[in-house]
């Protein structure tokens, strides 16, 4: 189907749905690299106007990647909930934005609607929204998940404690875990990116985290972010796995480049559930705009729409945590602070609208045009938008992955300024253990109370 829009005597034509979506996308380097971006500012806004006039129903009859070619498209189409879609089925994309901003779209209405939305619908409306719209609507959505604690409640901000070490040295990792706990981090998960993906190495780390959580009786969960096949094997060998991790993307071909497909994710999900170590949310997924293009698996679709499709993959497995690692991929996909900030807010909005428990790795690399001030802005904006969780690394410097993400101190800043508490069970533990003098005031105990463990 060809789409067009005429304004002030100029007619803009868009050859198909994916072209319309790509050209309507706010500017970012990855879409230029893929050759799908609007050729100038006027064409971009004209595409947004054409998109605003598009009936939402169009996304049910026309796919950006053919049904026959891609299992993610098949998942999206086959799992679409027509009944819950019916409330907005008469709307255009532009009217849908108005409805989302209206008082009719409250927490309950948005929760009911989520399974009736496809990722392309969420991506489309996000493209005609400003930053304040992305924040306002996301803030109304609530996606609550549970394992040993409850994540995503109103007025809460959780953190993943990320104690990475370049050689997986247990003592080095333990030192970072201790540092993080003493600063109140780790309620979303204590999660290590392992330097080695070997099964025995991963099992060693799993036991180590499990012992820390058991010994200190901490209401949180652990994860070693190995490939899903490694974790499945670790489970088969009896390792204490709380969460099953995998990086995912929005096309079958990009997932294949990660060494996964939906059947394998199902296998991982089943393996995680079989252990019955916590609640029913046993998956931890990571995503990020640009991953499909990076794998040359983008089918000419813009990177933000593909990112939203990754959330359709995630929600099929009822995850505890989904994390968009927004600035990790580099400046050829998101060039500067402005692009990273907008992308982080789009991802969070789309994820929440689709019913996914979104967190964000607010981050950048040293070859991106970004710095700590940009991260402070995105952190503050995501805090206002009600993000479920962020990362916490010592001093914002991940010495294993060589990039900068949010620090333990950063999370405390956001909690103070925006009046956000950790997960309730974890907050109680922080007070019981004497780490926080007052969770309500985000006040750390001056006396450094935890008995320091012996580190080898």
């Amino acid at each position, binding site marked *: 189907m060809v789409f067009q829009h005429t304004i002030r005597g100029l007619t803009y034509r868009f050859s198909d749905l994916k072209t319309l979506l790509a050209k309507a996308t706010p500017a970012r380097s990855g879409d230029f690299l893929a050759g799908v971006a609007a050729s100038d500012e006027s064409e971009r806004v004209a595409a947004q106007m054409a998109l605003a006039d598009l009936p939402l129903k169009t996304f049910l009859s026309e796919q950006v990647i053919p049904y026959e070619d891609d299992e993610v498209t098949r998942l999206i189409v086959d799992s679409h909930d027509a009944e819950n879609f019916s409330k907005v089925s008469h709307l255009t994309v532009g009217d849908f934005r108005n409805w989302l901003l209206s008082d009719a779209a409250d927490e309950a209405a948005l929760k009911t609607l989520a399974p009736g939305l496809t990722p392309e619908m969420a991506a489309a409306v996000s493209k005609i929204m400003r930053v304040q719209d992305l924040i306002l609507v996301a803030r109304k959505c609530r996606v609550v998940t549970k394992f040993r604690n409850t994540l995503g409640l109103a007025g809460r901000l959780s953190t993943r404690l990320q104690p990475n070490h370049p050689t997986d040295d247990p003592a080095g990792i333990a030192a970072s875990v201790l540092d993080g706990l003493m600063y109140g981090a780790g309620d979303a998960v204590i999660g290590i990116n392992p330097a080695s993906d070997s099964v025995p190495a991963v099992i060693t780390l799993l036991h180590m985290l499990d012992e820390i959580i058991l010994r200190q009786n901490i209401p949180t969960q652990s994860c070693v972010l190995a490939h899903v096949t490694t974790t499945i094997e670790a489970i088969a060998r009896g390792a204490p796995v709380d969460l099953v991790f995998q990086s995912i993307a929005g096309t079958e071909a990009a997932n294949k480049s990660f060494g996964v497909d939906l059947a394998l994710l199902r296998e991982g999900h089943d393996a995680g559930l079989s252990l019955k170590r916590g609640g029913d949310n046993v998956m931890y997924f990571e995503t990020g705009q640009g991953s499909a293009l990076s794998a040359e698996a983008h089918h000419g679709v813009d990177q933000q729409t593909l990112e939203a499709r990754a959330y359709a993959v995630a929600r099929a497995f009822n995850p505890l945590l989904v994390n968009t690692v927004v600035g990790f991929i580099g400046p050829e996909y998101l060039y500067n602070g402005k692009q990273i900030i907008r992308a982080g807010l789009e991802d969070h909005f789309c994820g929440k609208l689709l019913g996914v428990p979104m967190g964000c790795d607010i981050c950048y690399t*040293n070859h991106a045009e970004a710095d700590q001030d940009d991260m402070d802005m995105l952190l503050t904006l995501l805090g206002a938008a009600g993000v479920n969780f962020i990362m916490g690394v010592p001093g914002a410097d991940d*010495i294993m992955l060589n990039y900068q993400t949010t620090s333990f101190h950063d999370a405390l800043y956001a909690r103070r300024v925006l009046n956000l508490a950790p997960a309730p069970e974890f907050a109680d533990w922080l007070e019981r253990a004497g780490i926080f003098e007052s969770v309500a005031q985000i006040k750390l105990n001056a006396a450094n109370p935890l008995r320091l463990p012996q*580190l080898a």
Partner: protein
Amino acid sequence: MKKSEVTTNPWTEFRKLTAARIALGRAGTSLPTSAHLNFQFDHAQARDAVHRPLDADKVFEDLRGLGLKIVRAHSAAPDRGTYLQRPDLGRRLDAPSREKLVALEASPCDVALVVADGLSSFAIETNAEKFLTAFLPLAKDSGLTLGPTTLALQGRVALGDEIGEILRAKIVIVLIGERPGLSSPDSMGLYLTHAPRIGRTDAERNCISNIRPDGLSCTEAARKTLWLLRESLRRGLSGVQLKDDAAPSLTGP
């Protein structure tokens, strides 16, 4: 004496267990001034490594001093801004460089060396000459024939594919500045590709990473490189199939 507003952490001794920025203390719940500014300086160094142009004249003279025949080249990315956003352009020569290399009509050789700025000019200025000083005698003793050495600006790893193909090299070795880490702005990577030609994938290369004074030494890197070279020539391939613990295959700048 005035009482400090910074609350220190009693676990500072654990700093010896990790290079992570632990036990930084706090002002209220925020980062103390010294920790904040130390971070800013480390980031500034990493940014400068990316953006300060390589001192190509100096590197040219340094390498010529080692007895190498040097050709200067430039990728199709005209400037740093384009280079950062268009990795595809950094993987190809610009037209004048291509013509210059073709005009050499090089005889077949075992190895062609490419020295490229990549994402850190510091890395090349710090490590390239030192590495080659260690490597060239080993290569000579092994009887390997060396083609012309290319000094390339705004280059990515895959630029070596086009250069190696033109120079009729069995193997191309690219020395390149790696993406700077906050504490490692001077890290050089080495990429080895057998039968270089345009379109080779990263899976067909072997990498030796983190070559720098505080990382892998130039002597050790030279030894590993020679091992990879010999194995690659013997087996007629490079990449994942050549992978061993000594030289893992990785993707790079």
